């Protein structure tokens, strides 16, 4: 009540709040500007990254949908999907164990789980490349190595979201189910699992997006023909640019955007954004 009255008074007297709004507007322009510019350029008629765009054309979009770009795009989609699935599958028992049990070494396990989030993905990529070469798995560099690397860096996201779900379970639910005759397995199936579904979905979505947008790890583990879209774009930039890149870029932005929009509608992601417990 107080805060609402207070901020109304803030706004009513312009001054500080109006100034804040102006600054914020500028920050939004800074933040969204380059993306909007890229989108505009993708519709350029000429073969240069002019802005303001000259003329309107869809030819770069046509080029963006040729195998040269579709292949890496589909590769990234496939990689992202498998990463999301594996990450969630591995995260589930891990999160559950951390939630349910107190055991020696629990703190160490937490550190291990969060490790890939805390260290630069670049380093994990370099290390994995070395590992694969060292144990003679050279031929697995490509999809397999990428999958392994992505799962490692994406699993923490899934563990986090599932943990949040578990922690927001009302405390006595499992006891209540047991008192009503539910065996531990049935409790998991009927009570725990339905209530952590949103955490699983959020985890899968974050894992997918993290995989789909990764660059620093992927540059070390890709090989010709098995290249994620981000690495492909990066490589292309070394040869100068074309508005095709702009079109491709917009596509790679749209896909996660649509995914998030759908999942938010269906399952809700808001609770998981901060990465820790919200009331």
């Amino acid at each position, binding site marked *: 009540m107080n805060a609402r009255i207070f901020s109304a008074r803030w706004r009513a007297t312009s001054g500080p709040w109006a100034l804040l709004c102006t600054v914020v507007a500028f920050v939004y322009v800074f933040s969204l500007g380059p993306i909007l510019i890229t989108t505009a350029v993708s519709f350029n008629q000429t073969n240069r990254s002019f802005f303001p765009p000259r003329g309107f054309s869809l030819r770069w979009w046509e080029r963006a949908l040729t195998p040269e770009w579709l292949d890496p795009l589909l590769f990234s989609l496939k990689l992202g999907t498998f990463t999301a699935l594996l990450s969630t599958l591995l995260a589930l028992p891990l999160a559950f164990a951390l939630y349910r049990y107190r055991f020696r070494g629990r703190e160490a396990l937490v550190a291990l789980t969060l490790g890939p989030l805390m260290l630069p993905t670049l380093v994990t990529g370099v290390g994995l490349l070395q590992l694969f070469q060292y144990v003679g798995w050279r031929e697995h560099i490509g999809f397999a190595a990428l999958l392994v690397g992505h799962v490692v860096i994406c699993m923490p996201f899934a563990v986090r979201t599932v943990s949040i779900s578990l922690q927001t379970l009302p*405390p006595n*639910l499992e006891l*209540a189910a047991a008192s*009503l005759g539910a065996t531990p397995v049935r409790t998991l199936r009927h009570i725990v699992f339905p*209530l952590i579904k949103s955490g699983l979905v959020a985890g899968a979505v974050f894992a997918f997006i993290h995989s789909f947008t990764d660059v620093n790890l992927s540059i070390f583990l890709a090989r010709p023909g098995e290249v994620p879209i981000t690495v492909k774009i990066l490589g292309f930039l070394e040869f100068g640019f074309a508005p095709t890149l702009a079109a491709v870029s917009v596509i790679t932005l749209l896909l996660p955007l649509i995914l998030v929009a759908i999942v938010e509608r269906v399952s809700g992601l808001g609770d998981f954004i901060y990465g820790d417990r919200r009331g």
Partner: protein
Amino acid sequence: MADPALRLVGIEKHYATVAAVAGINLEVNEGEFVTLLGPSGCGKTTTLGLIAGFFPPTAGEIYLKGRPVADLPSFRRDIGVVFQDYALFPHMSAAANVAFGLRMRNVPQPEITKRVADALDLVQLVGLGERRPLQMSGGQRQRVALARALVINPTVLLLDEPLSNLDLKLREEMRIEIAAIQRRLGITTVFVTHDQSEALVMSNRIAVMNAGRIEQIGEPADIYERPATRFVAEFIGRMNMFAGQVTPARTVRTAAGTEIDLPVPASIVTGAEVHVAVRPERTRLVRDKPADGLALRGALRQVLYLGATREFHVALDAGQRGLVETPNDGAAPSFETGATVWLAASFANCRVLPAPS
């Protein structure tokens, strides 16, 4: 003779250095409503958890209808539990919550539907079956929790302070209602609370617990009128406690030197430290020394007006304090603060309790 519905023998529960339950023996008969009453930390919730099977006892045995269950996990005991926070399943409707126990017992669906409807009717929630817990008030959730535990017809119904999250009016209504339902269905019930009025209103018997043990168990009137220890006397209602010592003449001499000539139980030895205990509402304040019964002189310190009653706080000789509670009959009190008064009571209303060692 039929087995009691519930029997606890030598039940103990130790955590690291703490003995949450230090030795409980309890028998609850079929259809009885027994309350475990005590302050926080006395072990009553732990005892309930042991009966429910949420954790194993460190020692002792639990019998449900004669069957030893201490080794059985919760889902194999035939119990129903109502939790303090209700623990309703948020992703299920009220009806689905109530049906859950029946589903776990593989009851056929048509019977489930009927019994759920009956249970919701019993707790007066007809028509609210499809609502989710989040869309219900605290009182409604509590009724769903109750229905859920009752519908499965458990051997024993366990309630863990189910009323403590409700506001006062609702609490008073619900205690009568729950007791009525229990009497009607005849389900053996163990109720845990720290609220003594709840215990007095609802129970067939009350077990007053302190520091992991039962100090006294008996019918409400017994516990109130004839408390066996100082703890029980002070936990239920309020009690005047006048310290003294048993004289060779088997009277009690107070610190002020007053000799109180009331019967001292044979179990208390001469010379022992005791308290003479009398309820404030059984005392009265008089101007002149009463002819017989308890008579203690003092000065009136304070009069408190509580609407239905008045409290007179008296500073007795030798530093003791007395409390007299009188119904407010509309007349103004005839004593002024500072006046010399006598606290009087008949010996029939006094008890001699051993002082705790």
